């Protein structure tokens, strides 16, 4: 009887039940498994030895592997700054001067964000590779005598990151600029603000939410990216995501791979927490 009473109160269950159950089984539990595995060790044949150890974390926070983790963060920050420096002025220009091309310019930014990242990076490799299209043209024109080595270096990897994640920075900024109240800008001019003044005291603070949303959508995926290092870095410039692939697919050391996944997740959750603290709820609302 008690049970029936309890169940009759759970009117939300038919709705949120399926998604909730799904998330618990396929997101929360796997994450828990990863946390557990990150504290045990793999034997010499990849079998799991169920004994507590922090050896995986110790291994990741020393030498070459620590460099790779630090590099991921560095590349992600550089990518984010460059995307912001390109994305903000671009969005600003389209909002103010886009005119009848506004929708076209917006669409031309949205479509690449929907095209498979694998393919977009592959397209870059076809252009910059050896043999590749740029080399083929330059050799044909006699501008260069031996092919340029444009790929498989850090610059190529960071370029790939910027190329991939720029739309995700620009679009939320565009949305926030588009929603800006024009009368506020006019008021600031009436009150004698110079254009530069106006930008830093009115426009930028009012579009802070868009900048934060863009940063979440650009910094975090760039930080966890593994395709740019794989396809443009030729697995010679590794990032944290490359380590995940290395340990899960190539080597089959699940505990070490799980530790990388846990570190990545913890870092990302920390970033989001900081953004929410700094940018307020608005950034998150803009995302969902």
């Amino acid at each position: 009887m008690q049970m029936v009473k309890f169940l009759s109160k759970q009117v939300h269950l038919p709705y949120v039940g399926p998604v909730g159950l799904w998330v618990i089984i396929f997101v929360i539990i796997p994450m828990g498994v990863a946390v557990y595995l990150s504290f045990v060790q793999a034997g010499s044949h990849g079998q799991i030895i169920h004994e507590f150890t922090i050896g995986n974390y110790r291994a990741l926070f020393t030498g070459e592997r620590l460099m790779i983790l630090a590099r991921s963060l560095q590349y992600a920050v550089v990518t984010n700054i460059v995307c912001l420096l390109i994305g903000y002025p671009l969005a600003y220009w389209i909002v103010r001067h886009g005119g009848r091309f506004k929708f076209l310019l917006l669409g031309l930014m949205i479509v690449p964000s929907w095209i498979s990242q694998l393919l977009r990076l592959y397209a870059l490799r076809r252009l910059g590779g050896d043999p590749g299209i740029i080399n083929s043209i330059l050799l044909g024109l006699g501008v260069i005598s031996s092919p340029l080595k444009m790929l498989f270096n850090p610059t190529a990897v960071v370029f790939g990151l910027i190329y991939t994640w720029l739309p995700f920075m620009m679009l939320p900024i565009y949305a926030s600029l588009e929603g800006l109240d024009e009368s506020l800008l006019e008021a600031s001019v009436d009150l004698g603000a110079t254009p530069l003044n106006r930008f830093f005291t009115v426009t930028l603070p009012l579009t802070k939410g868009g900048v934060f949303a863009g940063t979440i959508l650009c910094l975090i995926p760039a930080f966890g990216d593994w395709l740019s290092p794989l396809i443009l870095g030729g697995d010679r410039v590794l990032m944290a995501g490359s380590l995940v692939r290395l340990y899960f697919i190539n080597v089959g050391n699940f505990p070490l791979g799980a530790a990388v996944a846990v570190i990545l997740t913890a870092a990302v959750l920390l970033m989001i927490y900081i953004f929410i603290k700094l940018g307020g709820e608005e950034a998150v609302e803009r995302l969902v």
Partner: protein
Amino acid sequence: MKTGKIADIIQRLGVILVYIVLWMPIIILVVMSFSNHAIGLRWQGFTLQWYVQVLNTSKAMEALKNSLFISAVATVVSTIGGTLGAYGLYKYKFRGRGALRMSVLLPITIPYVVTAATLLLFFTQVVRIPLGYISIIIAHITFSAPLAVFIVLGRMARVDWTLEEASADLGAGKLTTWRKVIAPVLLPAILISAALIFPWSFNDFTITYFVAGVGTMTLPIYIFSLMQYSMTPVVINAISSIFVVLPIIGLLLVTFLQRKETA
């Protein structure tokens, strides 16, 4: 006045440059798929032979079929589950609501590789689901159902809910109310999430790569396997065209639906 004009031109050139860099690689990829050059590095006359070759490659066709099937199932399941979830999250206050909201956000905020790797762990170490169709579909739903939840939630906040109450007051059952009132109101949002999820699922390489195991090819996995050989790339260009055309269709569809929604 003069400097203003020059600044104007420089800005304009900057905007054009960004778009050229963004689109040139993609356009060249598609254009080269029609070039008669053996490895697609130069324009050597128009040909459709690479497309014919793709159509005659049974592996490519099978990968396409797999991709379409997986994306279709993932889209339908995610959209239905996501819509119900959004309705529940919006309409009812219950214990754990905030926690559920946050957990649903999780798969779309943490990096793909992490979601992919933890699912691989789960499938191989805990439940032992054989890697293949089933594991790929589960993984795709895990990522895309949350997308549907948040798209539909966004729509629900803007809907006038008095109709639903009226329908209940007039004695309509829960199912009738859903069929006659709720579903039609949410339909644009449901279609938009489907139009977003299908291309996402169809495009996905990362998550599929981790949980596919050996033997089950989707189109992106097939492309990746071709990329390992440097000398057979023109066929890839031909396949890639579909990946460029699909999002354009998707975007037009979403724009159309949004116009309808606001109209």
